[in-house]
């Protein structure tokens, strides 16, 4: 094993080394526990980092420095936030459904962490290689809706209720185009196994699915749906602070709120991770000569790009309205995703280059046409010209 490979496989080697101290009977269990602990540790600290990045980034977008008091450059701000959250009073509304109110954050955080088990973080670095990885990801992800419902309903608050109704409607609607966008990749690689999918994109960035016509559109669809699924701006309607105050989060405080917050970021990173896995080559380096950089660094680098994109979009865009959100999902993304599946099939069957012009033309037509349709749902669209009174 060369040094490069050693560094690449360092987490795995560490795990093996730790496991070797235990009797053989316990070893698989210990290995599993270590993987789980590693996932929780790594992604929880990534969560902390991304909250800092978000606050700093939003600050810079808004021409202010962001948090800069705790520690050098405010680096310890997440720690301070965490301590604050922990020691804050946990308030439960008097007439809340106490059980549901309590269970909701827990029921949310568990699936949010569970989905990481099928994300290949690096070469051979996956907690659970499973031939149904992608399906597992979506199946577990689907159950987060229930916990948001529990939070909204259990809080005994009209805003929470409205927020959770919106959240459910939104998540159901956007799950569909998201899964359909993922189906294109499954179609192309004929595998549901995330490891296989990543390996199918080896060789360089031109082999990544994002660099095919269907892949690009599927990535875009997937990304928009990811924004909606993780309730991020401009689709943060469930918590829409200017309308519903904070939706299902209104009645949460202290550590439970922190759990929701954490679940939001974990969900965001998990979906970004899935997008990377499906479309952007996972842990693969963009050029073969860059292989000396450890694979997991590529994964985390791509993940960081996604997080930055999320923050950037959040700092820029206003929020959509609930019905516009639904229209976007059902009238725009869904047809495009369906068309895209067909094109992916064509791509697979026609072995490449012939599919390019057809795909580009069809997708271009579809996007323009559906875009018109979407605009047409408003009374008047487009640029306006203003007159001056005499």
């Amino acid at each position, binding site marked *: 094993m060369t040094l490069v490979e050693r560094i690449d496989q360092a987490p795995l080697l560490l795990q093996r080394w730790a496991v070797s101290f235990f009797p053989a009977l316990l070893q698989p269990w210990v290995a599993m526990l270590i993987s789980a602990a590693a996932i929780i540790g790594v992604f929880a600290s990534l969560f902390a980092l991304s909250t800092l990045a978000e606050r700093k980034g*939003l600050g810079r*977008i*808004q*021409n*202010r420095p962001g948090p800069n008091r705790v520690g050098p450059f405010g680096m310890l701000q997440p720690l301070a936030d965490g301590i604050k959250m922990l020691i804050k009073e946990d308030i439960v509304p008097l*007439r809340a459904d106490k059980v549901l109110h309590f269970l909701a954050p827990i029921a949310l955080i568990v699936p949010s962490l569970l989905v990481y088990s099928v994300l290949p973080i690096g070469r051979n670095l996956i907690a659970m290689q499973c031939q149904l990885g992608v399906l597992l990801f979506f199946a577990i992800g689907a159950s987060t809706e229930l916990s948001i419902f529990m939070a909204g*309903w259990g809080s*005994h*608050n*009209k*805003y929470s*209720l*409205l927020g959770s109704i919106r959240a459910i409607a939104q998540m159901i609607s956007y799950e569909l185009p998201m899964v359909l966008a993922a189906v294109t990749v499954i179609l192309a690689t004929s595998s549901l196994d995330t490891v296989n999918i990543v390996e199918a994109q080896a060789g360089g960035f031109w082999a990544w699915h994002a660099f095919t016509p269907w892949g690009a559109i599927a990535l875009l669809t997937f990304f928009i749906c990811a924004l909606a699924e993780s309730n991020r*701006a*401009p689709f*943060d*309607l469930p918590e*829409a*602070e*200017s*309308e*519903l*105050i904070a939706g299902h989060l209104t009645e949460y405080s202290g550590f439970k709120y922190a759990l929701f917050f954490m679940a939001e970021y974990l969900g965001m990173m998990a979906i970004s991770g899935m997008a990377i896995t499906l479309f952007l080559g996972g842990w693969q380096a963009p050029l073969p000569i860059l292989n000396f950089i450890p694979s997991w660094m590529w994964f985390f680098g791509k993940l960081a790009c996604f997080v930055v994109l999320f923050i950037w979009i*959040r*700092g*820029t*865009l*206003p*929020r*959509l*309205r*609930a*019905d*516009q959100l639904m229209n976007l999902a059902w009238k725009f993304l869904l047809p495009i995703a369906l068309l895209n599946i067909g094109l992916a099939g064509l791509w697979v069957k026609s072995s490449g280059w012939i599919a390019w012009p057809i795909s580009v033309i069809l997708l271009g037509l579809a996007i323009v046409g559906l875009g018109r349709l979407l605009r047409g749902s*408003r*009374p*008047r*669209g*487009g*640029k*306006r010209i*203003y*007159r*001056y*009174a*005499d």
Partner: protein
Amino acid sequence: MIPGVSIEEKTDPLQGQILEVSMGPHHPSTHGVFRMDVKLDGERIVSLKPVFGYLHRNHEKIAEDVSYLGSIPYTDRLDYLCSLTNNWAYCLAVEKLSGFEIPERAEYIRVIVGELTRLVNHTCLMGFFVQDLGAMGTPLMYAFREREKILDLFEGLTGARMMCNYMRFGGVRCDLPVGWIDEVKKVIAAFPRFLDEFESLLTQNEILIARAQGVGVLSKELAINAGITGPCLRASGVGHDLRKVDAYSIYSRFDFKVPIGAHGDCYDRFMIRLLEMRESLKILDQAIAALPSGQIIDPKAKSRGLRPKAGEAYGRIEAPKGELGFYLISEGGPSPYRYRVRPPSLINLTVLEDMCLGGTVADAIATLGSIDIVLGEVDR
């Protein structure tokens, strides 16, 4: 069972249930302590009643107790974003009541600070409006960044950033400090860059267009009949601007235009303000170029111990939010017998329900944001 949600069964069996939501007074987007009693069918608004008065301090009664001069600082606190135009309107009414002349220089200074106030108000409003549409405060921060520069100017001139208390009957309180005009020139020169930035950030943004166009439509007829004034009226297509209609002060000397909209929706109200700012910049350029020297206050006029003869006067100006009028009845005493503010914010709220019915909660928030109210003025 959803506890706490009061349900009003409607007689129409095809309708869904009605959810009553009380938005405010502690709500992030009600622009102060303002409440909307909203009845929702699903997310659609079937009834919306504005409720206010939480900030009511009976400004008019206070003014009947203090001297004419003593009311000026209170007018600062009406629409606390544009204290200078409030001063102006009040002084105008008193001047009409007692017949003071205003020196040239004072008129020019008034126009300069008045138009700067308009810039302050419109930048703020646009930031708030986009904030209400859910943008994470970014446009608001840009707007505040520019506003601070103008507030610095106010600080240099009047000594306070927001509660300026600057105008006096028959003129202004103090003359321009040395170098102030140059600073104004600098700020004005940099301002179009900000407007361009704002436009490219927002005006073509699909989400903003989707959220604002066709939302909160106010028809021309209703706007006139309901006494809507200011940018809201002009967005509905009525070219009514007191700077042109009354041509009070010296506005007739300036070359500027009054932008009007055609649709009367939130987007038009937003754009009209943007265009108005550009016109204000034009006025400022002209006023600064033509600023004469001379007195700043009518020597006949006295501020302290003013006792106008019995009579009454209604003075109005085009404040950034609309027609701001002061109606004064004097009985010859040291304080007005009756002092009345015609607050544009309050009257512009009259049609809030009409504009919001049938829309969603999000639309109502956008509409409220586009009307531009300040609760200090609504409640007085």
